[in-house]
């Protein structure tokens, strides 16, 4: 397959996956609105919403939460659901390798991440003191992408290794612990020492620290890059393994 073919097929798969997902708007809206509503109910009424640094940090944390929920649900549960459908088996008989399909999924997920960040950023901008100077915009977007890498690969691993029911259970049981212990809901400065030590090892914490730093200029702990890279390698290997062994649903 030539590179041009690959790009064309990637675009094709991204477009069709997006069309397919967006035609059931309620599924999309749920994922999209949770971070925005959290900001609206738990940050906007608080006094620290008037503090630019604190408000920006809170928004950055919720942005990572957005990325995580799209990764766990769109990739994890979504892939598991698709794999259970005969249509997915059919797609695997088409002359298309794994890359365009996975990249299409990646782009599709990015589109939904962008859609869920839109209301979050709007609320932060209009109702809190959060600021993001244009000079930090690109850096913050890049940090969000980097933070998303292990979460994306983790979602793919779940999606390709489990049934829909198992994926849903795993995604749900990972979402809140990873969000809480990763400092996406409460700032990690409030954590007791032992919790902070655990937190520092989590991909969500590393992602959170990176994004907060990119958005506010706060310092990044030295371990962040290692944690993020380590988790990306681990989840990436898992994802490749899960994808390779997948033969669609299996019945015994």
């Amino acid at each position, binding site marked *: *397959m030539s590179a041009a073919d690959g790009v*064309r*097929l990637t675009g*094709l798969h991204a477009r*069709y996956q997006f*069309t*397919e997902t967006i*035609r*059931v708007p309620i599924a999309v809206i749920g994922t999209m609105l949770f971070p925005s509503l959290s900001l609206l109910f738990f940050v906007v009424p608080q006094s620290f919403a008037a503090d630019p640094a604190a408000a920006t940090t809170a928004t950055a944390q919720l942005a990572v939460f957005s990325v995580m929920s799209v990764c766990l649900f769109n990739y994890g549960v979504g892939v598991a659901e698709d794999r259970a*459908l*005969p*249509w997915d*088996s*059919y797609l*695997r*008989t*088409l*002359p*298309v*390798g794994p890359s365009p399909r996975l990249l299409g999924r990646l782009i599709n997920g990015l589109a939904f991440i962008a859609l869920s960040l839109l209301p979050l950023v709007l609320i932060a901008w209009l109702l809190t003191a959060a600021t993001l100077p244009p000079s930090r915009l690109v850096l913050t977007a890049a940090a969000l992408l980097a933070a998303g890498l292990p979460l994306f690969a983790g979602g793919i691993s779940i999606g390709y290794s489990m049934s829909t029911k198992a994926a849903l259970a795993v995604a749900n049981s990972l979402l809140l612990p990873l969000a809480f212990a990763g400092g996406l809901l409460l700032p990690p400065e409030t954590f007791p020492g032992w919790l902070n030590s655990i937190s520092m090892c989590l991909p969500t914490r590393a992602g959170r620290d990176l994004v907060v730093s990119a958005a506010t200029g706060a310092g990044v702990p030295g371990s962040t890059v290692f944690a993020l890279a380590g988790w990306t390698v681990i989840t990436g290997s898992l994802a490749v393994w899960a994808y390779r062994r997948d*033969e*669609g649903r*299996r*019945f*015994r």
Partner: protein
Amino acid sequence: MAILARAVQATRSYGPVIALDGVSLDVPAGQLLGLLGPNGAGKSTLLQLLAGLRRPTSGTVELFGGDPRQAWRRRRLGSTPQETGLPPTLRVQEVVGFVAGHFDHPVPTGELLEQFGLTGLDRRQTGGLSGGQKRRLAVAVAFVGRPDLVLLDEPTTGLDVEARHALWDAVRVYHRGGGTVVLTSHYLEEVEALAERIVVIDQGRVRADGTLAEIRSLVPARRLRLRAPDLPGLAGVDRINRHGDRYELWTADSDAVVRQLVRTGIPFADLEVSTASLEEAFLALTSPAGRPAAPAVAGMPR
């Protein structure tokens, strides 16, 4: 003649269940091959191996001379989802366009829809199609890439007679144009109407492989039906079924049996002589009662 697909001693098990047990099969270019077998015989597993959906547990499977799990090997392959599992929110033209996007010279959407009796439905979401329309669309996408080999798994299940015949016509047109088809079906009539070569699979093994005539010849060629109070033993009769005074006899030489019947002077009535159908051959090959007769089949080319 080029071999488009091949299985060599292909075995596939799911946990403890052996779905396919050492199957060897060549699919030469231009052939219309029917795979027959009861549910769970391993037909679908064989097609899934050929389409690269699954790996054989042991043995090898080739598509266009190589591993079907390599995407580019599948460029000249057309296949169809077994169930009507189309993405319900996508429109008909979107589904066809999406599949067409994977091939270099696809059939234009309008032409394909017309060929499969779906004209005018291009803007419908597939979830809103009738069962028969979904089935036809699922089969239609197998042909969109102008493939050299098409794998059709139960293509006409759930179609009414008219739609089934329309689909058979489409398959025949494709085959006459040089296309190769491997078809599984529950309908013996379908395989009888379409296939040049029939492979009977049961319990994961090839039980018979040959032309329609050859498969038929695996059971006694003629069936006699008659009513009689009590039949004496008759020479040349391979099998007898009796329900009250109704008899069914299978024999290679019906004329000789009829002559014997007349000579016995038995008052028989309602005599019918017919050629044994594919169904009878199939039942004899795959029913538990038919299995002891397997040695007769073992001599068949594999």
